């Protein structure tokens, strides 16, 4: 044994003797309060000033109104769609005055409506132009990018299809209101001659696959299915590509990018595609920005329902969505998204309904109803995980699966509906209080019953929770009436960062535990461990 090893051994023995004596002292059996009864104090967090629960909006937007001859239904949401935008995408952006169109941020070729081919009083030639936009990309130092939160302090990156806009699309502009997750619901009518032009304004190749929509595989020898391996080259950045079809079957369908769908679909390049049943004078609302309430329902829906809602659900793994913030170099992003990110290890952190998580879902995606009504709720599972939609207080009926009507005698009525990835289920909510369809008025939770889906990064309540809100239960701010626990903390970033103790608002009994200084034995033990490790390391090297 050399001198170094001998000295280390002597020092270790001294340290062990010291620890033994301290331990014997601290674990002594005196007549004081037993050690195991001693506990540190409770520490509550200071709740920051919550953000405005319903940010100011133009209240007149909620009213039923007629614009450009288009009837717009009322929308009692805190944050309703701009009725002028609803009117423009219904009438056709080529059929409204330019000045009014400029107010909406839409380009004049966002949705062009042409001839009434069958003479039934509505246009049948529909030309739609989509762009591809990024939200919450790499935070630039001096460049203004679109930034949107899905919940307080949460801003994962997205790529979305958006109606073609005009002018600047930076924060606060009209155009930026049209660019959001989810990609807009697109609506056409059975028998329409639809032409959808994809102008790829993004920095990766993209295509569109019209999932479930009746379309030819090729049109004039050109691929029309959007699958790069068998249906032709996708649109490269700066290029445009067109898809044409005349859907003969109505139903709730799906559209999404089919280039590297394992990441492009999840990044947000997907939305609901609705083919409405053919009726006379049936000019449909071609875009429903951000999904949610349909303010200009089709004639067929109006015949049977009082209100109509589009509901798009998706889970988000922030590891994928934040990969686009790594750099502004498309090659770096491509590697981060397509190679470094492994979708087989996917682990969602956020769950969204119409692009938002609770409490923001309540600003724009409540299912607002009244008594004795019939509500059409189209649901799309746009994510990769299963969906178990549960409605409190109601047993809806599934009328259509994947756009196909279920025989009336076989229609299922239940309070949890399983919807697999990419599936669509049309639900009918009957608000007649009869103990089966509805248990009466209220602000009833509506959520995915997979328990992780009602959280935001594991903190509840979050995720895709919204409410079936009867008008009599709407509060002054057009959110559900707040009863029970305070909502203040839900509108703070701190709550979803896990810095506010659970139930703090109700009781001090569950607060955070005061941090205690480390005990002497613990420090000594750690010191000894470090010393021994260091000594072994030194001996190995020497």
């Amino acid at each position: 044994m050399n001198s170094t090893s001998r000295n280390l051994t002597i020092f270790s023995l001294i340290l062990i003797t010291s620890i033994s004596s301290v331990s014997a002292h601290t674990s002594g059996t005196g007549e004081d309060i037993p050690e195991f009864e001693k506990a540190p104090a409770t520490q509550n967090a200071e709740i920051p000033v919550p953000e405005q629960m319903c940010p100011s909006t133009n209240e007149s937007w909620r009213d039923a109104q007629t614009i450009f001859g288009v009837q717009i239904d009322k929308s009692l949401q805190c944050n309703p769609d701009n009725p002028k935008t609803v009117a423009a995408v219904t009438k056709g952006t080529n059929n409204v005055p330019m000045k009014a169109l400029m107010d909406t941020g839409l380009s004049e070729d966002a949705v062009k409506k042409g001839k009434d081919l069958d003479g039934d009083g509505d246009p049948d030639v529909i030309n739609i132009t989509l762009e591809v936009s990024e939200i919450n990309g790499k935070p630039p130092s001096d460049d203004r990018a679109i930034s949107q939160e899905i919940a307080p302090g949460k801003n994962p990156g997205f790529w979305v299809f958006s109606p073609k806009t005009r002018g600047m699309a930076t924060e606060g502009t009209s155009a930026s209101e049209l660019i959001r997750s989810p990609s807009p619901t697109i609506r056409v009518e059975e028998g329409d001659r639809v032409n959808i032009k994809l102008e790829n304004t993004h920095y990766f190749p993209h295509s569109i696959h019209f999932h479930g929509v009746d379309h030819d595989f090729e049109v004039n020898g050109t691929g029309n299915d959007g699958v790069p391996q068998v249906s032709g080259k996708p649109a490269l950045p700066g290029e445009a590509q067109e898809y044409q079809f005349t859907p003969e079957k109505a139903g709730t369908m799906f559209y999404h990018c089919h280039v590297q769908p394992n990441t492009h679909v999840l990044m947000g390049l997907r939305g609901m595609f609705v083919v409405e049943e053919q009726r006379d004078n049936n000019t449909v609302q071609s875009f429903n920005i951000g999904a949610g309430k349909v303010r200009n329902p089709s004639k067929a829906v109006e015949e049977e329902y009082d209100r109509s809602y589009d509901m798009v659900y998706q889970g988000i793994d922030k590891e994928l969505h934040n990969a686009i913030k790594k750099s502004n170099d498309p090659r770096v992003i491509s590697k981060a998204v397509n190679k470094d990110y492994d979708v087989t290890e996917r682990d969602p952190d956020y769950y969204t309904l119409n692009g938002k998580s609770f409490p923001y879902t309540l600003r724009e995606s409540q299912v607002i109803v009244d008594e004795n009504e019939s509500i059409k709720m189209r649901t799309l599972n746009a994510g990769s995980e299963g969906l178990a939609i549960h409605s409190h207080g109601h047993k809806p009926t599934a009328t259509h699966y994947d756009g196909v009507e279920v025989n009336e005698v076989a229609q299922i009525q239940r309070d949890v509906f399983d919807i697999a990835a990419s599936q669509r289920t049309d639900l009918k909510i009957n608000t007649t209080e009869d103990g089966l369809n509805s248990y009466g008025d209220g602000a009833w939770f509506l959520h995915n019953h997979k328990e992780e889906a009602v959280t935001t990064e594991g903190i509840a309540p979050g995720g895709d929770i919204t409410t079936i809100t009867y008008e009599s239960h709407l509060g002054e701010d057009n959110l559900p009436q707040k009863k029970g626990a305070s909502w203040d903390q839900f509108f703070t970033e701190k709550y979803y960062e896990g810095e506010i103790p659970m139930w703090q608002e109700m009781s001090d009994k569950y607060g955070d535990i005061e941090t205690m200084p480390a005990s002497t034995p613990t420090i000594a033990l750690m010191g000894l461990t470090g010393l021994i490790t260091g000594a072994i390391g030194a001996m190995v090297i020497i």
Partner: protein
Amino acid sequence: MKKTLILLITSIALLNPATANVMGQNTDQLPPGCEEISGTEQLTIEAGTEHAEQFPSKMYTYSDRKLNFEPCTKLEVTFINNDSIRHQWMVHGLPEQTYGKMGMFMLETTSGKEKGTFILPSEDESLLIHCGVPQHTQKGMKAQLTVGNGDGDIPNVPGHTGPIDGYSYDQESAVPMGMVVGITMLLLGASMIAIMEKRTEK
């Protein structure tokens, strides 16, 4: 008569919606400090992916990204978009008294060509030019218009100024190389100590 005139103007605007893609058009209003137009210049700018080919990390940019004109110059700009999508040539920082609250002149077109005219301010300034389509600025569509001697450089202009929040391209090779160098140095140090101890024993 007045109604007919309004109808005619509205009809022309609808027939030619491209006119609405020019914002801040100014052919004769002198910005504050300009006593007269100092000169008239024609400028043709092209835009699209092909111009970014020389910059490996960029996707879109302009044919010219560093421009220099005298104060109070009247610029007649022709903007040619070589792509099949929308691009803008948008100048910021113009005097609000002349160009409104946004202080902006913009040409926007989806492929094809757009023309417009504006008058530069009287002060030496460095004006930002960019495309406001989401992510186009970040992916390379940025330029600098220097009025007179300018007042500094605008960052992230391809071929002109470097990024201020650049990505470290050596980060992937840095870790393994750092480990190799570190271990080598450790072994070297241990060897030196061992040699020194042996010499001490002798």
